[in-house]
């Protein structure tokens, strides 16, 4: 019996699902190995089915999504989050730091007609998550790798080392040491292949925090590069602003006396 899989979308940009839709031949190969039962973007629509593996993209931002994720959890064997939105609340979790209601009113003439929550929260705030895949977006290698592991009867490998190590494996020249550019690599989770430094720009932490990070030391380093407090804060309050270690560091630098 091929395992059944589902891909669900919550509040997101759809970029993570593209890890599958852009997989080309691998997408066809995957459809032989598993039975895709729900994946709206690819035309599979059985939201109610029991599945062995559920991939979830997106964060929870509406009452309906709150209910839906609980129902999905109940009929899914393993639940795996895909990407920054599902794993840390996404870029849109920036609203959690502000007056989200005021923001709504600034954009919509009738915000009261829109069913929404004041916050954008990761899936794990609502239901237990079996495995998290970080990235904004996640890439095909990560997702097919996870599927392969599960097919082999093991959980995917957790790798939380820092981008720096991969950056050096690629023999890229450090943009912070040699170029004076701020780089989040020393606190960011590996997985992207250290893309940004490989093309000469600093990492902006789209893969979330690595293990055992020293955000305070990195922030001090940014200061020596001549950055103002708010700019330093924004480095941490970016794609993965909802990740607790980034959130805490970022907010510290946004406080007025920190400039």
């Amino acid at each position: 019996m091929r395992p059944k899989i589902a891909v669900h979308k919550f509040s997101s940009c759809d970029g993570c699902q593209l890890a599958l839709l852009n997989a080309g031949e691998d997408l066809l190969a995957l459809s032989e190995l598993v039975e895709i039962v729900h994946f709206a973007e690819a035309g599979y629509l059985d939201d109610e089915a029991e599945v062995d593996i559920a991939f979830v993209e997106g964060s929870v931002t509406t009452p309906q999504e709150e209910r839906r994720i609980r129902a999905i959890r109940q009929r899914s064997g393993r639940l795996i989050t895909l990407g920054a939105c599902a794993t840390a609340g996404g870029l849109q979790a920036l609203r959690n730091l502000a007056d989200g209601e005021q923001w709504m009113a600034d954009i919509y003439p009738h915000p009261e007609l829109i069913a929404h929550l004041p916050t954008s929260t990761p899936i794990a705030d609502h239901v237990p998550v079996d495995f998290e895949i970080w990235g904004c977006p996640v890439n095909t290698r990560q997702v097919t790798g996870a599927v392969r592991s599960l097919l082999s009867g093991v959980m995917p490998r957790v790798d939380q080392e820092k981008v720096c190590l991969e950056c050096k494996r690629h023999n890229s020249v450090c943009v912070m040491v040699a170029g004076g550019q701020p780089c989040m690599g020393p606190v960011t989770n590996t997985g992207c292949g250290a893309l940004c430094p490989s093309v000469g720009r600093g990492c902006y932490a789209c893969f979330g925090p690595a293990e055992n990070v020293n955000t305070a030391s990195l922030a001090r380093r940014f200061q020596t590069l001549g950055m103002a407090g708010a700019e330093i804060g924004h480095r941490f309050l970016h794609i993965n602003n909802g990740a607790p270690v980034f959130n805490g560091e970022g907010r510290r630098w946004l406080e007025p006396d920190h400039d």
Partner: protein
Amino acid sequence: MIDSREVSIKVPVLARVEGEGALEMSIRNGVIDQLRLRIFEPPRLFEKFLEGRSYSDVPDIVARICGICPVAYQMSAVHALEQAFSMQPGPWVREMRRLFYCGEWLQSHALHIHLLAAPDFLHYHSAIEMAKEFPQEVRRGLKLQELGNAIVRLLGARSVHPIGASVGGFVYAPAPEQAAALLGRLRRAVPEAEALVHWIAGIELPDEPEAFITVCLRHPGEYPMNEGRIVASTGLDIDIAEYPDYFREQQAPHATALHSHLYPEGVAAGGGTPYLVGPIARLNHNLDRLPAAVRVNLDQTGIRFPSNNMFHSALARAVEIHYALLESIRILERYSLPEVAAVAPTPRAGVGFGATEAPRGLLWHRFQLDHTGHVQKATIIPPTSQNQARIEEDLRRSLAMYGLDRSDDELRLHGEMVIRNYDPCISCSTHFLKLRVERA
């Protein structure tokens, strides 16, 4: 019997629309009483959290509005910001941005045609199912999609949320060897793009001519992507900065999204009307900007543009795939390393506008910045919110013509097909929202 039927069709998840939406409609006494395209996409409030951010963060942030057309968001944004800073990054950057955009058109159009539209037309649930009987066609589609991704990767290191675009140009210039290798792959794919146009043209589709207003960019010398004036089939021809004078979005009380309307005589004069943006609009207005090879290939199909049949939108996409491929080849044939890949911006206070042609149509940005280059106010009008009113109008008309006496399933499938013509990318709708349904 028909007259006495009361039907309410709900499509809880609209299959194969990127993002999840729903269509609700009720038919009373043989006429459509209510029709709503419901979008479940919750607001992600990008315009608000851009406020206070440095201009240099903007390309990375706006990309996250849509994973399928991040390049479009980046391009509208950098053009708007550069206009605010009164800077011009020069010919190399200009050409590379065009190439970047070609990659996105190729990728997005190929994805739409093969994973979304063609399975519809040929009655399959999915492309994967379709691949069993059309293996060559699906593989060709996947290959063109991958070529588009490869172009985006050349300039952006990855295809979704690429990291290469910056205000002032690009973070890096690709190595000539990489450009040359990609050029070879693109050249080999030309016959496939030509064949794709014929394949799509050969699929039998409803012939439903109708009158609709089209809006897109028009450039004096080229098929529009990053630059041009905004034109409409009403004869409108304005600078992109004048957009707010002629277009307005409203949160209509019955509607589920902000609907954009065009006011041909200016917003003040009233008389707003739905309009279409996207491939058909672009092709209808810019046929004379296509290279001969693209036009000859299209002519051979026997289908003529300008077209007023919305079911030609997949064909228009195929034609644009052909065009984007040839345009990429043209650009890459002349590729050389620039002196610098980006001009360093000098921030200053001001307002800038950017309008580019996203795969799904006109994408309009306005940024107001302070003297340090931090965003004070951002407005982003994506193509899907512009097409929204048009889709509902089209649904009402097309379903009535199709015959409201059809079974629920048939109506649903037809409705889906109509919607699909617009390729509504629901995630990218910074304005789309779900309203509580009010029922009479």
